[in-house]
């Protein structure tokens, strides 16, 4: 089998996929369809690019400005001219495969490299051969359909962490994550939502004899903040992919269990997918079902109902009928209350604004460990900025944002969890809640650094043993060496 034939086959397959892709984009299929098609195209591209003539072409083929022309030759003279054109100008015949197969009355598709486009069109005009531009820019179409480059293997296989996923897919993902990482991950039932859906969290726990402390992180308390659940999923994936190779993760997993809640406000999240993209609250009915939703982040028992809230159900910051009036709030609060002596860190992920927020929102009085909280948050923000240059502001909610009571973060700190933070992820308002999916990866990468900085700090603070061991190790080593040298010298 010769190289040229393989390339041609790859290109024909790629071309078919491109045309199919073009078609599917026009009829706006369900997003998962696009993902499927993109995966096909990616496979097609890999196939066709993977067997390029070495040295002649690189893996990053560029088709910028290349056009695909559709011609139906009418006469034999036209056929001859086209055959001549294809062979002398090195045009890329997509259909048929060989110049000798060009026939009058039959479809002809040729890819014309950008520098030759005008020349070829002039030549066709001269010979009274009519043509249609089938593809205006081949590279554009290829780019549109290429999934993002990923350097890591997916866990589970095929799950796309750089796209937003509806709740059904997140439920499936949790099950799969547990199944393919059962030595480390267990899925747990936290409670039920007002519409009776299950709220699950994932526990990442390295098997061990020693008692562990807990890091808690929840995402998706506000429905429209889609980047938040995307981050929780990314975080889990990163931990599971790197816990063997990354020294910092390995170290803290010896001492800490990670409890991750990918979507707290399940009903609201689903509602933002199916009905109203910018929905924020849960879906609790009030006023005989004429008004829906409590702001779960105003519903916790931390100075509930005192400031920065509304008592009106129509408001986005409606605090509910009382502290913990909502089943979602109760599910989280009861669990954390039970485990509070072991929880060292409470993280809650929101968007947008680019903030790391410390307690409190309900008062300007600083928390007892304010200095340390600020120091660690600033460390985290610096780590975050190191990745893509994104700038986060650090401070208490009441001083840099607004006053609000009943937030989960305030409540967590008030019941004694020392390191409690709210993250507001990208962006600054340009895209606001509708952050494009091409920003999921950079957002998650930088946020990962911030979160692991905090976890690492907490680990080093409460489990300083490792450092001591290292010192004694190096001491004994130098002792050994000096003994050896003394012995050699004598």
């Amino acid at each position, binding site marked *: 089998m010769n190289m040229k034939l393989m390339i041609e086959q790859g290109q024909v397959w790629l071309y078919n996929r491109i045309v199919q892709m073009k078609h599917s984009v026009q009829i706006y299929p369900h997003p998962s369809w696009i993902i499927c098609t993109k995966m096909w195209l990616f496979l097609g591209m890999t196939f066709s690019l993977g067997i390029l003539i070495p040295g002649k072409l690189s893996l990053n083929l560029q088709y910028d400005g290349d056009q695909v022309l559709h011609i139906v030759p009418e006469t034999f003279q036209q056929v001859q001219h086209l055959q001549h054109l294809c062979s002398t100008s090195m045009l890329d015949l997509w259909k048929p495969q060989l110049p000798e197969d060009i026939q009058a009355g039959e479809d002809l598709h040729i890819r014309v490299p950008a520098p030759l486009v005008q020349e070829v069109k002039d030549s066709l005009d001269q010979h009274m051969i009519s043509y249609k531009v089938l593809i205006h820019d081949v590279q554009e179409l290829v780019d549109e359909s290429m999934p993002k480059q990923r350097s890591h293997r997916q866990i589970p296989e095929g799950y796309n962490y750089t796209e937003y996923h509806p709740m059904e897919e997140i439920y499936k993902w949790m099950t799969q994550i547990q199944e393919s990482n059962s030595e480390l991950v267990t899925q747990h039932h936290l409670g039920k939502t007002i519409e009776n859906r299950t709220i699950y969290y994932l526990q990442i726990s390295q098997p061990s004899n020693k008692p562990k402390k807990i890091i808690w992180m929840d995402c998706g308390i506000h429905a429209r903040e889609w980047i938040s659940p995307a981050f929780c999923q990314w975080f889990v994936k990163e931990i599971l992919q790197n816990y063997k190779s990354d020294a910092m993760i390995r170290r803290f997993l010896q001492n800490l269990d990670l409890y991750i809640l990918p979507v707290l406000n399940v009903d609201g999240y689903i509602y933002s997918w199916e009905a109203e993209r910018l929905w924020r609250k849960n879906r609790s009915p009030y006023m005989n079902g004429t008004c829906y939703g409590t702001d779960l982040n105003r519903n916790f028992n931390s100075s509930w109902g005192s400031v920065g809230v509304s008592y009106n159900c129509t408001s*986005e910051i409606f605090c509910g009928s009382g502290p913990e009036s909502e089943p979602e709030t109760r599910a989280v609060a009861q669990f954390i209350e039970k485990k509070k002596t072991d929880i060292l860190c409470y993280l809650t992920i929101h968007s947008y*604004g680019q903030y790391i927020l410390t307690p409190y929102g309900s008062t300007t009085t600083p928390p007892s460990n304010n200095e340390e909280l600020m120091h660690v948050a600033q460390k985290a923000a610096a780590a975050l900025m190191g990745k893509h240059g*994104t700038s986060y*502001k650090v401070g208490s909610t009441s001083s*840099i944002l*607004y006053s609000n009571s009943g937030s989960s973060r305030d409540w967590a700190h008030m019941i004694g969890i020392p390191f409690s933070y709210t993250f507001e992820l990208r962006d*600054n*308002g340009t895209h606001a809640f509708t*952050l494009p*999916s091409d920003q999921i990866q950079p957002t998650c990468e930088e946020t990962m650094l911030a979160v692991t900085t905090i976890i690492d700090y907490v680990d080093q603070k409460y489990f300083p043993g490792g450092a001591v061991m290292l010192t004694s190790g190096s001491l004994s080593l130098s002792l050994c060496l000096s003994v050896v040298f003394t012995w050699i010298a004598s």
Partner: protein
Amino acid sequence: MSQGPSPAAELPPSHCLPGRAAALAAAFIAWRRGSPGRGPALRALSRARRQVRPGRGDSTVNCTAEVLYHLGNKNAAPDVQFTIEGELKNTDEADNLFYNRIKSLKNELVAENVPDSYGNVPPEMEPIRALAWAASGYVIWQISTENTKYQLAQIKHVKQVKRSDEYLEFDYKILLHENVSQEIIPWQMTVLWHPQHGTEVTQNSRQPQHV
């Protein structure tokens, strides 16, 4: 945070008031300098740091602005003075391309949900979105107080209105996000635009909340 600071006090950049004023200033500048060829942008407050917007190679231009809220008169729009350090990129080419494209349309342009739920804006809709950004800057400037922080969240609906003169006219229904109350506020605005004459909002009104 119930009272404002004393008049002469220096506020740290991360205090919420400068954040709100910055957002307002950015909106005002968007109205004054925005166009279909120039998309939205507000970067970190008060730090001269070079930040590249993901996916594009544009560099940041620094702006300083002074915002004066009229605490005594809630109906008066705040005063905004701004200085742009250096030159903004010239958008004449993109503006003219857009202008000619729209002028040559057989049917009036109509679109919904820009960006869509996934944050996507089709390339041909970018100028429409940039124009909405500029025009909403005017609306935001008019309605802002020291207790509000508005952002354009989404264009729900936009319809071109054909005109016999040289202007382009669009009727927008937008959603504004107010950061303190967290409300999503529907707003209507009629926008006139011309490459040489800039952006004008001839009519705008708050819309009833969608029940």
